[in-house]
């Protein structure tokens, strides 16, 4: 079973990897985006770590709802409302349980990913974070490690795609050949989950 501490570790591990990879995320966002993905997410997850420490929520759902709210208010770019909605909706789906099972988490995360697709209007193949999140959620039934691998492969698979959402979509065919920064950061989030599980 997974308790609030597990979910705090998930957020902390993600914040640390976003910190480490911020420059790379921004570099990926330079040719097809507005070159702020790394710094925006870094600001957001730094705030998430701080608020979790301060408020110390005691259920898995409360950890994710608080983290999501923080991302919406601090990121400043589209990844804020998108990741914020992902975490908030996942947290709400987990409800008030003090501990949740892995299958319950997989289902809640699927609800979160569905909410992100509804908010941004993106589908798999549009060269967005969805291309890492959807395969990750499907693999989560097997293991956290399988989800991490699926997210990483999903992020790599965005390279030959043509963007159909967000700023990159204005570039049309020129968006082809660049790995999507949003799918890359989504893979960091999923890797943080595996790290929290000690995998």
């Amino acid at each position, binding site marked *: 079973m997974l308790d609030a501490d597990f979910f705090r570790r998930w957020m902390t591990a993600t914040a640390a990897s976003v910190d480490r990879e911020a420059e790379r995320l921004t570099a990926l966002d330079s040719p097809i985006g507005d070159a702020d993905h790394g710094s*925006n997410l870094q600001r957001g997850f730094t705030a998430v770590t701080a608020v979790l420490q301060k408020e110390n929520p005691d259920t898995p759902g409360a950890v994710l709802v608080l983290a999501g*709210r923080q991302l919406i*208010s601090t990121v400043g*770019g*589209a990844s*804020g*409302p*998108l990741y914020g909605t992902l975490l*908030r909706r996942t947290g709400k789906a987990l409800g008030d349980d003090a501990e949740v099972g892995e299958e319950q988490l997989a289902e809640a995360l699927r609800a979160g990913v569905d909410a992100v697709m509804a908010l941004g209007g993106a589908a798999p193949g549009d060269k967005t974070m969805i291309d890492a999140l959807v395969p990750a959620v499907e693999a989560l039934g097997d293991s956290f490690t399988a989800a991490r691998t699926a997210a990483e492969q999903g992020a790599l698979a965005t390279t030959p795609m043509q963007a159909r959402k967000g*700023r990159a979509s204005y570039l049309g065919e020129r968006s082809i050949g660049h790995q999507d920064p949003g799918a890359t950061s989504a893979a960091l989030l999923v890797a943080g989950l595996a790290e929290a599980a000690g995998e």
Partner: protein
Amino acid sequence: MSDDKVVGIVLVSHSAQVAESVAELAKGLAGGGTPVPVVPAGGTEGGGLGTSAELIAAAAAAVDRGAGVAVLTDLGSAVLTVKALLAEGDELPAGTRLVDAPFVEGAVAAVVTAATGADLDAVEAAAGDAYSYRKV
């Protein structure tokens, strides 16, 4: 509808200057009807390009006169942040609506319509109609 129940307008752009200028333009073209509360929410709190949920929430609270608030946005994170705030349920005043409209033309139509004392439905319809005005 009485003067104190006028619809409020929030203009959300990635740029503080764009939001402020469009607000000024729309108010300038509104003429002498009911004064309409129009507040820009542009850029991030640090003055950079982007969207601030805090500025949007503060702007919506500032223009709320009890007749609803029409929020117009430019693109990307501005749209998504307003939608995410609306989904939160308690971040924006009751009767706040994201209006699907072109930013500049929609803002002018919204403010001019609100100045006639029209309700939120009419303001939304007028702003959305701005999409149908072709220039060529």
